[in-house]
């Protein structure tokens, strides 16, 4: 019996599959650094202990090789805690022209440009969260950075922190659990409907501590919130390894939407573990837009643990020259009559590679589950790549599961039609791409959508014709 010429590794449950790893050298991260981080933040002892345990776990874990290529990450070379300070990373003159042009084209306010480009001063945490008005504070909504939450709401944080994504979950969760700094904390009490999106206006301390952000969102029964982070504008990061963790808890009947738009600079490895737990009747929506970084590995996950819970994932990826967007979703149906919908739209151009990696699981408890996944990929030229790796693991006969994917170039018929209306080839391609991504873009808050559309136009201009 002959063997296959290659065996693409099957996607497992997150970053944790021992058979598929390569060996790696000891990291430069030490216990002293972790103690220093914790000390500087004046953290409760329980957090320091958790960090140290996570450090040990990280030191024992190898780097995954089943996804994007992470072999170039040099762990010894990474500064694991960068103190926020006032001076800039680089002067405005050093910022590449292309970046400046992009800011101009997509209309980034002047005040933000220097910050995003890494040539402006830090904004501290307080000013970032100042937009939570009295109206919400009075009703018990908490929105602050996690460092502050740890000081002011320690017990609440301790109850949830690391319970959905423990350090042992995967290598990068372990790293994050050891050295996390910055990130948001959101708490919404029972029945409160927060009607305006909570937005971390800039990626706080983006160039520095932002690389190991930890976000915790707790939404009580019947409550409702939309959290938004990031922006379409190119965001410079001096730190090249981003290992963030996001944990979202949706109590019965709660509704949470978490929107992320990232456009990290091309030195960044963006490895994120995002997981939500939805109880009975709750709805969790992940809206995930990946525009930047050289490598992103991110699979927003939802555990549907209560009857009638619902998960929705909307994913958009733009993979340009030198980029690999490896994104997707993981849905675990663990209770009866749970439902999920996943929509993934990706565009690869200029040699970029976009991969969808997905998982839909149904077990004995998920009677009556329904799931529908649709992945559409657009390959703009013949040098780019698109992959789809969906795993469908169903151990529940009373289930309806559908998965569809398609890959194609921009249809010639559409291009020639649009040109016959007077659009140049580049305008036509840009319009088709815009229309292709529209189902996800229209779910973004308006300023994000506008910025995103301009950015897409700009990216497409370079790549067609």
């Amino acid at each position: 019996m002959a063997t296959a010429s290659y065996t693409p590794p099957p996607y497992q449950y997150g970053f944790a599959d021992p058979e598929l790893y390569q060996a790696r050298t000891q990291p430069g991260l030490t216990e002293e650094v972790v103690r220093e981080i914790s000390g500087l933040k004046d953290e409760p002892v329980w957090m320091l202990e958790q960090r140290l345990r996570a450090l040990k776990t990280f030191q024992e874990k190898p780097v995954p090789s089943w996804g994007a290529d992470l072999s170039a990450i040099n762990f010894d070379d990474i500064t694991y805690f960068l103190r926020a300070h006032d001076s800039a990373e680089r002067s405005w003159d050093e910022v590449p022209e292309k970046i400046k042009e992009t800011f101009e084209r997509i209309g980034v306010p002047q005040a933000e440009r220097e910050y995003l480009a890494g040539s402006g001063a830090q904004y501290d945490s307080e000013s970032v969260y100042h937009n939570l008005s009295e109206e919400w504070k009075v009703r018990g909504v908490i929105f602050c950075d996690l460092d502050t939450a740890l000081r002011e709401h320690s017990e609440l944080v301790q109850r949830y922190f690391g319970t959905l994504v423990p350090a042992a979950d995967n290598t990068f969760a372990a790293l994050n659990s050891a050295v996390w700094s910055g990130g948001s904390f959101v708490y919404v009490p029972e029945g409160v409907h927060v009607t305006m999106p909570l937005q971390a206006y800039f990626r706080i301390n983006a160039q520095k501590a932002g690389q190991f952000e930890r976000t915790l969102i707790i939404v009580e029964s019947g409550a409702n919130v939309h959290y938004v982070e990031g922006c379409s504008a190119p965001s410079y990061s001096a730190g090249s390894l981003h290992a963030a963790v996001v944990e979202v808890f949706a109590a019965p009947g709660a509704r949470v939407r978490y929107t992320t738009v990232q456009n990290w600079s091309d030195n960044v490895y963006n490895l994120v573990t995002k997981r939500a737990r939805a109880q009975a009747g709750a709805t969790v929506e992940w809206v995930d837009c990946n525009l930047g970084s050289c490598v992103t590995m991110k699979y927003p996950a939802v555990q549907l643990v209560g009857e009638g819970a619902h998960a929705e994932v909307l994913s958009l990826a733009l993979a340009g020259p030198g980029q690999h967007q490896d994104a997707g979703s993981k849905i675990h149906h663990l209770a009866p009559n749970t439902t999920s919908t996943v929509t993934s739209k990706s565009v690869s151009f200029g040699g970029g590679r976009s991969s969808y990696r997905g998982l839909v699981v149904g077990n004995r408890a998920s009677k009556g589950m329904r799931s529908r996944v649709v992945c559409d990929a657009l390959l703009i030229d013949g040098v780019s790549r698109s992959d789809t790796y969906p795993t469908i693991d169903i151990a529940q006969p009373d289930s309806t599961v559908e998965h569809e994917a398609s890959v194609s170039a921009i249809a010639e018929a559409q291009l020639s039609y649009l040109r016959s209306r007077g659009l140049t080839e580049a305008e036509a391609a840009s319009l088709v791409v815009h229309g292709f991504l529209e189902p996800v873009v229209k779910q973004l808050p308006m300023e994000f959508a506008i910025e995103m559309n301009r950015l897409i136009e700009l990216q497409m201009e370079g790549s067609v014709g």
Partner: protein
Amino acid sequence: MLSVKELQVSVGEIEILKGISLELPAGETHVIMGPNGSGKSTLAHALVGTPGFSVTAGETWLGKTELLALEPEERANHGLALAYQNPPAIPGVAVHQLLRLARQNRDSLLGLPQLPLGLFLKELRAALSLVGLPPETIERAVHDGMSGGERKRLELAQLMVLKPECIILDEIDSGLDVDGLRLVGEAVGEMRRSNPSLCVLVITHYDRLLEVLPPDRVHVLQAGHIVRSGDASLAREIQKHGYR
């Protein structure tokens, strides 16, 4: 004036048009009739420059502009517009999005100032209304999920908004009922009112469209040649006796 001189067009290896000539003066309506496979649509696509239709000989002129030297979008900017027989859907792209951009490009070429958005939308809504489509159509994705009749009407509305010099209607009558046909006549009439020098080239099988678009000249295309030309009575004759 649309002028075609000894035009030869191939699709792949196959020669479809073997030397077509016609002169369509400003303000006139000419009709091309012919059996299936005679090359009628090929003529339309060769004029607008659809890829895959290669002109191997001949010339095409719109006024003083030589079309063959121009990219498809440039021909459109110069005022040539085709109402497609089978227009493709463009999912996620709203009617107003496409047309605003197209109109801006046309106005640019004409040296006209850009129409403010409000006025543009007003024109667009008026055009849609004339062809019997509701105003909400401006938000709908172009041809996406539309019936055959709706697509024909939308093609016409698009042509109206582009303020063309010469329009080609490629079997606009297929899929339209009596009311739809009447609207075609009204739409073309409206375009003529705002531009009396508009050239109209109608490609069709049947003569019922000609009741609402009375032709100045009828040409019969068969096996890649114009075999006969005449006035409106020629169309009636063909309808009665078929192509010979």
